[in-house]
């Protein structure tokens, strides 16, 4: 965490994407969800089920956070406040799974 805030223009008044962009994102989210469910039902996809589902849901996650929650356009400090704990939470999940021999 540095102190770039000082003397810089605060960025909370950035132009947000308009309704059109929001709907576009929603369409993408819907398509990804459909894709996920499809993967679940197609036996041929099962060898890559876990990695592909994880990738797709991470993509959805990112889209919502970046555009609907405006992190892409907002001040970097907010990203820090959210992303660091998220990484920590993910690390905790992975560490516990490892310690309990899930993988």
């Amino acid at each position, binding site marked *: 965490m540095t102190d770039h805030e000082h003397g810089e223009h605060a960025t909370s008044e950035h132009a947000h994407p308009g309704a059109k962009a929001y709907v576009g994102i929603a369409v993408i*989210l819907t398509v990804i969800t459909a894709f996920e469910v499809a993967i679940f039902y197609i036996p041929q996809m099962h060898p890559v089920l876990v990695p592909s589902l994880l990738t797709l*849901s991470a993509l959805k996650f990112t889209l*919502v*956070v970046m555009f609907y929650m405006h992190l892409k356009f907002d001040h970097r*400090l*907010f990203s820090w406040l959210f992303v660091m704990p998220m990484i920590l939470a993910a690390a905790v*999940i992975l560490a516990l799974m490892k310690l309990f021999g899930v993988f």
Partner: protein
Amino acid sequence: MAVAAHAVPHAAHPPTSTGLNSRKMLFWAFLGSECMFFGSLIATYLVYRGRDQVGPHPHEIFSIPFTSFSAFVLLMSSLTMVLALAAIQRGDQKKGSLWLAATALLGMTFVGGQCYEFTEFFYKGLHLQTNLFGSTFFVLTGFHGTHVTVGVIWLWTLFTLAVRGKIPKEKALDVEIAGLYWHFVDIVWIAIFTLVYLIQ
């Protein structure tokens, strides 16, 4: 203070060191904290998965088409939420209140679906006490459902205010923060849907 003064979005608030609104910052920190909360719940679910001594097991119980629809409903509520915010930020409280209502209704649909799902599972023999799957599943999704319910109450409160014209442009932050909460609840469901339902 001249440095930060021009960056202050709301005249009512004293200027801050970063020029960022304190309430919004508090809320992002809160969401960071919530990450650890849901992270611990999800970790427990994943650690205990497959250790059940007795059924029912996830694959005997989950209805993927139904939950996919619920997940879709919640995703769409994120869209209506962001549209509500955009309207309020433009100063259009009428449209804003409509989108807020739509979001709340979608949220209620999701919670209703969850109630239906829980009842269904209950009759199929999966109780809170049946096995580890029952305990971890109901507590994890139950806490998520509680979050959605709190969000729905919050949204209706904002709706009432917006209808009465009490959320002008200058107070858009109130809606923005509710939106952050709502989207967070949505992304938690994105994670739960994948990790709990699809990857069995």
